């Protein structure tokens, strides 16, 4: 029941990404979902976590991190609610530094132990409200990054954020996500100078999006789109809606990114990791599948979470027509002034392989529908 609701919420998120009221906030929500990676099966906790991400997506990183540490989904996911004075669990303490704030090799095992002690007693009610269990908290003195005191979790986060490395770690991640996978140290230094002052995410994003280098050629059309960026991108050209929730998830699964279902605590591996021999073929076929009612073939497999009880009934090979409604009228309207030739540069931002360019020139006489589907079926369209 709860599991089904989580899938519905995931599908609703996908629809929202396709029809955002605030584009930047949506993009940032997706970014943070792959930073503060978390997964849960309880719909209440999942919903609470998801809404929290959207609410804080452009807020203050300090508050954000503290709120994350108290969310029921996170307390469960990284075992912080099992972290008790008598039996500390270091899972959250470790990932807080390694994945959320500082990156690898910025702390010692001793720091992790002391941090874990400070977070003891964190828990939540059945309904998901945060509670602090005094009796399970370790009230003795802790020494963390050279400072001593009777710290709690919030104190630990404050001490971590005193390190400029935290601002740098987050800046690099945002740069990789929004600008270029190849880090330019000069640009990062500028970002750190803005972000370290007060950890205001909106200010940082404003700085990045208004900087000159954001628009330089070397930063355009070089990044491999994530599956969600790819799917949402098609929708901005030709609006479409996948009718069945199950098929929304199927398409995401075939591409390797199911919303609300990260592969592990590190999150989705991005960049070239999105592409293997299967996903590239699926990507190049998908515009025809979504917009031209083509058939998609896939074979069924089990995953860790499904307890397969009846093997014989499961089909081993499937062909599916993804049921989609498309809004070609909007496309016609939006692009009515553009020739096929002009469409090329509106749809594709990367440089184009010369042989492909010649092929596109030969195909100029295709109908606008066919031509745009062809454009979105190119390797070049995978880049943004």
């Amino acid at each position, binding site marked *: 029941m709860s599991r089904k609701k989580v899938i519905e919420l995931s599908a609703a998120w996908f629809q929202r990404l396709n029809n955002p009221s605030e584009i930047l906030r949506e993009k940032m929500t997706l970014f943070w979902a792959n930073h503060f990676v978390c997964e849960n099966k309880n719909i209440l906790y999942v919903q609470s976590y998801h809404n929290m991400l959207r609410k804080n997506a452009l807020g203050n990183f300090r508050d954000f991190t503290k709120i994350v540490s108290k969310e029921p989904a996170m307390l469960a996911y990284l075992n912080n609610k099992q972290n008790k004075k008598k039996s500390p669990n270091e899972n959250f303490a470790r990932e807080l530094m390694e994945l959320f704030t500082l990156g690898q090799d910025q702390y010692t095992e001793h720091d992790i132990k002391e941090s874990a002690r400070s977070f003891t007693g964190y828990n939540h009610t059945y309904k998901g409200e945060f509670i602090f269990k005094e009796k399970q908290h370790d009230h003795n003195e802790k020494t963390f990054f050279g400072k001593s005191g009777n710290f709690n979790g919030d104190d630990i986060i404050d001490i971590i954020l005193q390190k400029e490395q935290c601002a740098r770690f987050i800046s690099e991640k945002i740069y990789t996500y929004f600008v270029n996978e190849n880090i330019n140290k000069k640009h990062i230094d500028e970002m750190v100078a803005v972000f370290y002052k007060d950890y205001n995410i909106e200010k940082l994003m404003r700085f990045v999006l208004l900087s000159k280098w954001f628009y330089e050629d070397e930063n355009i059309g070089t990044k491999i789109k994530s599956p969600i960026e790819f799917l949402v991108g098609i929708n901005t050209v030709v609006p479409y809606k996948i009718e069945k929730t199950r098929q929304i998830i199927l398409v995401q699964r075939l591409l390797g990114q199911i919303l609300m279902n990260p592969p592990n605590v590190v999150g989705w591996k991005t960049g070239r990791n999105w592409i*293997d021999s299967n996903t590239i073929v699926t990507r190049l076929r998908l515009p025809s599948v979504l917009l031209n009612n083509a058939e998609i073939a896939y074979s069924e497999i089990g995953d860790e979470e499904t*307890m397969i009880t009846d*093997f014989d009934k499961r089909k081993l090979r499937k062909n599916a027509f993804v049921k989609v409604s498309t809004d070609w009228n909007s496309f016609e309207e939006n692009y009515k002034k553009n020739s096929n030739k002009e469409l090329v540069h509106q749809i594709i931002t990367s440089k184009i*392989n010369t042989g492909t360019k010649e092929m596109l020139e030969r195909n100029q006489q295709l109908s606008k529908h066919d031509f745009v589907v062809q454009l979105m079926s190119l390797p070049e369209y995978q880049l943004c």
Partner: protein
Amino acid sequence: MKRRGFLKQSTFASGMFFVPQFLKAFENSSMKPFSNKKVVIIQLKGGNDGLNTVVPFNNDIYYQQRSNIAIKQNDLFKISDEVGLHKSLQPLQDLYNKGFVSIINNVGYPNPNLSHFRATDIWQTASDSNEYLQNGWVGRYLDYTKGNPYSAIEVDQSLSLMLKGKSQNGLAITDPKMFYDSMSAPFFNNVVTNYNDAHLSEHNLGYLYNTMIDAKSSAKHIYEQSNTKSTFAEYPKNIFGKQLKTISQFINSGLETQVYYAGLSGFDTHANQPGTQERLLKVYAESMEVFINDLQKNNAFEDVLILTFSEFGRRVKQNESKGTDHGTANNVFVMGKNLKKQGLYNNLPNLGNLDRNGNLKYEIDFREIYATILDKWLAVDDVAILNKSFSKLDFV
């Protein structure tokens, strides 16, 4: 052979640019496989309960800790005075008696991680438990041997970290015909044949085109090669049986692939474990029996080593719902024709000496098994691939 000779000739005569680009990746790479040995890796996904698979039927602690899920003596077939295998593994009994099975007990690693995903990553990358690697041990084997994409095949929908290398990935295929068909659309031909910007090779765009080209040339090769031989053996009609059937078809048709990876899901038995595990182990054993007999009939078994692992074992003490929770060390099955040590490789775990979570303390690092396979079976430099030196075992 002639065509390849011609292509090589023309390469020397007129430069790379006259070779159709889509043949490039394929024809340029080393033609001979590194050795004729093959490894088939099977993962029992979800964490199989090793203690109820290889059962210490004389151990009081075992029966005390598992009052209503312990396997009774007459539900076992005994392989020693103390050890019996779950009755669902009966189809393997004949193979076991012939010495084709070696059971390595108590395999794990320091500071175990009890998450499925993380533990699977650790097994797939051969990392330490606090180390996050972006490539897998089989992927690094591909890098090292400069293998083709199809040198390592995962029979699955998407490619696991295990088969991803720094410069070369393996392939994920469930059905060679479907894979081939899906890439035979004229559109893909167009895309692939039009790729001619050699200077893009370092750019992400070059990576995209090259992945496509690799996939296309591999799909064609695998389809044509594996079509030469169709298997007549009757495999159980389930997903796992289908996976093994595909692998045997590849092996028996002489495909140059050296590593195969497949898996059987559903072992995460937190509740009502007995029925589920019984059914899953049956699926496993029945398919494996057909698979090994099929390989033997085709004189291929000699060159195949089969490794079965699970990302972790389960806690010694059962839980309140007739199930078991995530644990640590587990047994690993090695199957092959000329095993140096047959039957039980080492003693069963000591149930009286557990860690503070009530879990087994491992005795053999899983990477010692990898190192042994790399060094003694595949004859490559295991240290270069595992990034560390591990002592070798003597099952092969």
